[in-house]
């Protein structure tokens, strides 16, 4: 199933995706640092040198990504507020602009909730990000994922081709 991205409200983004794997495995892939660092890397060209996660209510986490190209870093950190393995994980999320900069207000946390449901060996993941404001939501992706710029221009080209 292709990824589904919706906006349940002004401040939220929801991502829905299925995986051909049991729920426990998808849970592990989200909660064990040695697995998380294998896939949660964002656009090509980024490494994840820091992935500390203390997955329990009140436990902290810190993720840092580093550009292979210029060594610049940014990240997220926060606290787990709900841990119900292997069904639900909720944490707050603060943006750490590092030396990448920010078009997103720093200091307002987003609330990220991950819900996993399994049926016939297929796991459906629902990830809901609730931002502090509409502006934070709009800025969240423009920031950090810096090669979004490039992707934006590539899409712009497509749009022009369609429009022309």
């Amino acid at each position, binding site marked *: 199933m292709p990824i589904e991205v919706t906006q349940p409200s002004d401040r939220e983004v929801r991502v829905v995706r299925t995986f051909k794997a049991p729920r426990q495995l998808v849970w592990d892939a989200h909660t064990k640092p040695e697995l998380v660092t*294998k896939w949660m*890397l964002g656009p090509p060209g980024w490494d994840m040198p820091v992935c500390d996660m203390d997955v329990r209510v009140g436990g902290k986490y810190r993720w840092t990504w580093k550009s292979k190209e210029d060594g610049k870093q940014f990240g997220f950190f926060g606290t787990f507020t709900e841990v119900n393995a292997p069904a639900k994980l909720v944490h707050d999320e603060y943006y750490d602009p590092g030396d990448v900069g920010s078009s997103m207000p720093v200091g307002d946390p987003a609330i990220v909730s991950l819900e996993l449901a399994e049926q016939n060996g297929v796991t459906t993941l629902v990830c809901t990000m609730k931002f502090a*404001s509409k502006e934070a939501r709009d800025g969240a*992706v*423009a920031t950090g994922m810096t090669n979004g710029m490039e992707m934006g221009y590539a899409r712009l080209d497509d749009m022009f081709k*369609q429009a022309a």
Partner: protein
Amino acid sequence: MQSSDRLDLTFSALADPTRRAILARLATGEASVQELAEPFDMSQPAISKHLKVLERAGLISVDIDAQRRPRRLEPKRLEEAVDWIERYREIFEQNYQRLDALLEELQAKPPKKKRKKS
């Protein structure tokens, strides 16, 4: 103006095929109102209306000093607006495709009981 309000303005400006075609034309270089009106089989006032919407959204600007007052594309605003939701999709999909591969790999080999310190 907040960036989200600006996005709203930009999106509504982009939600019209004529205005998108005008932007596509301006992407190839600046043009006067008359030049823009030609290919669209529209009156100049009708085109001007569309141009005002694009201008208000910051997608184009006018060179008021030049005699023919050419319009030109403001690529920065367009870039800012280009479907931010599409970026979420791309970033998540890139991650999830790697996760697909990882899950496949994990299922292919029997789980080891070895305890790993972390």
